[in-house]
């Protein structure tokens, strides 16, 4: 999929584990793992907002568009 989720990069930059992010967002680790591996179908604005708030970043730092061709 051309939309890449850079959650792992942001987590590394903030030195935060997926478990900690999961606890702070109140989202299961399974869902965050799916999101991190770009396997999810869609992301809610509310989820994106919460992630940006916790990681203190912009949506563009989490999501990236890569043209396949």
């Amino acid at each position: 999929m051309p939309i890449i989720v850079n959650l792992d990069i942001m987590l590394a930059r903030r030195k935060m584990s997926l478990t900690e992010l999961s606890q702070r967002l109140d989202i299961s680790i399974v869902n965050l793992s799916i999101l991190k591996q770009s396997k999810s179908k869609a992301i809610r604005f509310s989820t994106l907002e919460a992630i940006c708030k916790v990681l203190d970043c912009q949506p563009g730092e989490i999501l990236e568009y890569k043209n396949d061709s």
Partner: protein
Amino acid sequence: MKESISKSKNGAGIIIISLLAFGAILSKNKECLLIPAFIITLIFLFGILTRRSSWSKPYFTSKYNIFVAKIRHREEFDFPKHLLFEKLVEIMPEAGFKIRKANEDMGDIFATTSLTWFSWGENIYISLQEVNGKTTLDFCSACLFQFSSWGKNESNYDNFMDEFEKSLII
């Protein structure tokens, strides 16, 4: 995702039971009606007693079992096995299934549904197998004791897939 569907052919079962019933009705000796009734009751009781046992899986999923209406589906997911397993365990209650046994190492999930007007309840068997980073899911929904599921097996699968798709919106 690839999909293959198979439905059990229970026409033979219906014909056998119909022949037994007609034979018994046409026969002068009405006591012979008791024999098929007794056999059917025994099979029904066996189904009820063994329903929630995970060892009864071969009985309920066997293609030779004409007393159990069942459907099978196979899907391939671009997910690691452990992640898919965790996800399925999460969505099963939302799809209306009660998990009876879940073994992550084996990749097996056994769940049941409750009694409805159209069904005595169904057994849901899910098994996962990982090959080359992709996971194949085998789904089987089997009725307790019915020649036709009246669409319950199909709706179980539809509910399951709907919940799975919905759960991918995070």
